[in-house]
């Protein structure tokens, strides 16, 4: 017999013989994918997982998740979690479970994404595909609408429900026997809020910029990074910033000889990097909801409030994401990270193209790809440019150059910011799947290290 998520959570707690947390994760999704001007795949899926976190003896924990759980099988799931807890070694992050309060909306049913949620997109995409065909261009891309509703209940009385809608559209255009490539993407809470025609127009414009090809060598360039590229670099920075790794001297935010770099000036710019569960259009859960412990979240911390947290303020490293356990290890404040990221630079104004207007000689990138860590202690990252690199001279784009492999540290780059644009919602080309809720400015940076040429076009 099926049951509502909140009922499953309550039944799990009722079946528990000791301290217990139940998380029910309900996910509904619709997606379309297209390539070479034709639809390739689609999907309309729903899933529901129940995770039971059972605590035994105060510091032993068993975490068992299962999909397709109904009221008849929930007790068995709880029993498995409790057995796992009894059999486990003590958990290093063990702590008292977080007490209430109970959310009035806890009993509400989850929402559902339907094929109808794709209707407007399908129509605008159809027009874009038709335009592309008639213009001898090809469009490739992907769009999805998801609604992820999480129910959190604890034997301490805590009841929380959070619905997280998310939509993304990515559009890649190619022309001239695929020798030219351009990309635009957007994230929102609903597909209806994404202007596909505007994305298609941007892609078409940029393909036009590539009519003139110019030679360029590897080297360091004054470079304009659009918000998408900044989002990818800052996402990696956030994911490399857990307090424990820093405290143990294993990350760029650790001080040689011990301790974190909290308090260090990272940038001469008055910039802020922060996460905020209430950020307009990018809201995320206001309490911790995790089904597994990691440096960024502990199962014992489920239900702890998540508030706005500045990681960098006025260019100074102010905090690092923690769990209660890692905050204690590192001797710093407990700061739970929200699932979004915003950068603002005082005085930042305009778009990437406005920054181009002030650049005498340099490059304008479109986006970055295949970003991987080379050295954790400097956070040296490598990766590639993609979908258009443009030569800028005298404040104008004068043509396209080759793609490059870069080797750069985003933390080091913060101190090489020359100018910034207005912070706008953006979608990271590579990490937008994992962190779609980002708002970033375009940045102009000195000496961006284009380590070698990539022949990819």
């Amino acid at each position, binding site marked *: 017999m*099926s049951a509502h998520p909140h009922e499953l959570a309550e039944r799990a707690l009722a079946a528990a013989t000791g301290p217990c947390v139940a998380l029910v994760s309900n996910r509904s999704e619709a*997606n379309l994918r297209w*390539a*070479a001007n*034709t639809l*390739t795949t*689609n*999907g*309309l*899926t*729903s*899933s529901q997982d129940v*995770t039971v976190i059972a605590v035994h003896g105060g510091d032993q924990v068993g*975490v*068992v998740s299962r*999909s*397709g759980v109904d009221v008849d099988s929930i007790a068995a799931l709880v029993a498995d979690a409790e057995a796992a807890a009894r*059999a*486990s*070694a*003590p*958990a*290093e*992050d063990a702590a008292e479970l977080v007490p209430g309060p109970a959310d009035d909306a806890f009993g509400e049913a989850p929402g559902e994404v339907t094929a109808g949620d794709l209707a407007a997109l*399908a129509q605008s995409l*159809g027009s874009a*595909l038709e335009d592309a*065909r008639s213009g001898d261009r090809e469009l*490739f*891309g*992907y769009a999805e609408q998801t609604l992820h509703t999480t129910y959190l209940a604890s034997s301490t009385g805590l009841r929380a429900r959070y619905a997280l809608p998310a939509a993304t559209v*990515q559009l*890649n255009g190619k022309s001239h026997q*695929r020798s030219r490539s351009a990309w635009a993407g957007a994230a929102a809470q609903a597909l209806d809020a994404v202007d596909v025609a505007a994305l298609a127009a941007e892609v078409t414009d940029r393909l036009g910029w590539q009519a003139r090809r110019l030679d360029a060598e590897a080297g360091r360039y004054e470079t304009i990074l659009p918000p998408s590229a900044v989002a990818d670099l800052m996402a990696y920075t956030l994911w490399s910033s857990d307090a*424990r790794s820093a405290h*143990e*001297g*294993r990350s760029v935010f650790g001080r040689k*000889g011990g301790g974190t770099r909290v308090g260090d000036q990272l940038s001469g710019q008055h910039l802020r990097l922060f996460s905020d569960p209430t950020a307009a259009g990018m809201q995320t859960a206001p309490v911790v909801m995790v089904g*597994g*412990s990691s440096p960024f979240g502990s199962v014992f911390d489920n239900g702890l409030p998540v508030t706005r947290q500045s990681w960098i303020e006025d260019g100074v490293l102010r905090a690092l994401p923690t769990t209660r356990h890692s905050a204690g290890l590192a001797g710093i404040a407990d700061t739970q990270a929200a699932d979004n990221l915003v950068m603002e630079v005082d005085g930042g104004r305009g778009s990437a193209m406005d920054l181009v207007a002030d650049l005498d000689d340099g490059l304008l990138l479109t986006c970055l*790809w*295949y970003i*991987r860590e*080379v*050295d*954790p202690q400097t956070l*040296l990252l490598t*990766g*590639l440019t993609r979908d258009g690199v443009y030569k800028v001279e005298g404040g104008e784009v004068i043509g396209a150059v080759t793609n490059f*492999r870069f*080797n750069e540290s985003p933390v*080091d780059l913060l101190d*090489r910011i020359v100018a910034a644009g207005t912070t706008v919602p953006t979608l990271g080309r590579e990490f937008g799947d994992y962190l779609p809720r980002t708002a970033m400015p375009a940045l102009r940076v*000195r000496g961006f290290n284009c380590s*070698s040429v*990539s*022949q*990819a*076009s």
Partner: protein
Amino acid sequence: MTRDRVDDDFRDLPLTRLADAALQRARELGAEHADLRVERVRSASLRLSDARVAGGGDSTDSGLAVRVVVDGAWGFSASADLTTEAAQAAASRAVEMARVSRPLSTERVELAPEPVHTGEWVSSYALDPFDVPDADKAEVFTTWSRQLLDAGLNHVDASFDWVKEQKFYADLAGTATTQQRVRVQPVLTGVVVTGDGMETMRTLAPPVGRGWEYVVGTSADGAWGWAEELEALPGLAVEKLKAPSVEAGRYDLVIDPSNLFLTIHESIGHATELDRALGYEAAYAGMSFATPDKLNTLKYGTPLMHVTGDRDIEHGLASIGWDDEGVATGSWDIVRDGTLVGYQLDRRIAQLTGAERSNGCAFADSSSHVPIQRMANVSLQPAANGPSTEEIIAGVERGIYVIGDKSWSIDMQRYNFQFTGQRFYKIENGRLAGMVKDLAYQATTTDFWGSMAVVGGPQTWVLGGAFNCGKGQPGQVAAVSHGCPSALFTDVRVLNTNEEGAA
């Protein structure tokens, strides 16, 4: 003893009834093709930090998926409920999705023919890791972690991931297969930190399609040599911390299988996925320089180069009896004598390009996802009477021996790549001359494989692999193995990563 039968608790599910319900509904609604998958994927993990449990869990994802072709268009839907009603509803929704999609589709979907198959297949493993008490697993990794800490390392991260994947597939043509495979990934990483800096050293044991015997076995049993590796690891970490920084330049590289497998994955494995080469991944993972017009002409590398696609190698992470389109699997050549001669295919791509049949590379990582073309085990074959690693090194005047993988990145057409590793040893006049660090090698795919001067013998061949290869939108992960021998590559660009990072 290896298993020969899928677990009863999966076989006992109403698999045939679910298939009948879904396929009949799809047929009634006009589907030209319909297939049903019932999947149960149980994944578990254990994480330790400095010999204390830092996390873990046990997650089971199960459900059914219906994929249809209606009027030449794909439709797909999935459900977590394993009831005939859910199967019928999923079939109806899949048909609805196909009809919604039809106006946007300009290519008619047709599938390459495949004989009808029925049967059962189980991967080769002895000890189901889910049958082993978690406390026993924790004890092994706690003991190993303590051993490394006691040897002087400042920190030790340990993790163990284990997965059991069960699949039932049936289609309108009559194919019905049931399969089960098990894979494990044990990793330990030692960290040494001083006022001068930090270095890490990770175990080289690759993830494999084996069971718990891979962890508790010994090299004498054909499992991994854990005792030897853990004994050496602390000293290697300290040696690396003290090692001089490499001098950037061009070197001959002797690359160990523990590193080369990943270069194969990125520069050959992904590059020879035909869906990519045709553009079906262009918006995301990218395309390939190895386009179909170059088949049988592209000089991928030196004539010593022989690369195969395999879906039936024992313990391979991508080994399976039938793929997720009911295609019977096997092996085939991808690069022969240095020339591109084959691709990885699924049924739609095979039909589209005139191939007689698919070579069985369709895979979905769960019932929630549609099968897409995923990588077979792609392996570099050893030279029949080739040299040992020591013999290869002996022939190098000035070079570097590269062991273990670490960082990897390649462009979206698979030209330009950059890899680091766990350990690097200078080679001077045919002998190892101490460790260096801060090294990455960078090349273009065909230049690199064109510089392969010596291929090691079978005695150097190791089946490496990766647990979580990403592809597709919505994103899917797949596990895949790559076997290779040691090999020598001449005149490769080596970077000093400190210099790369210096502003």
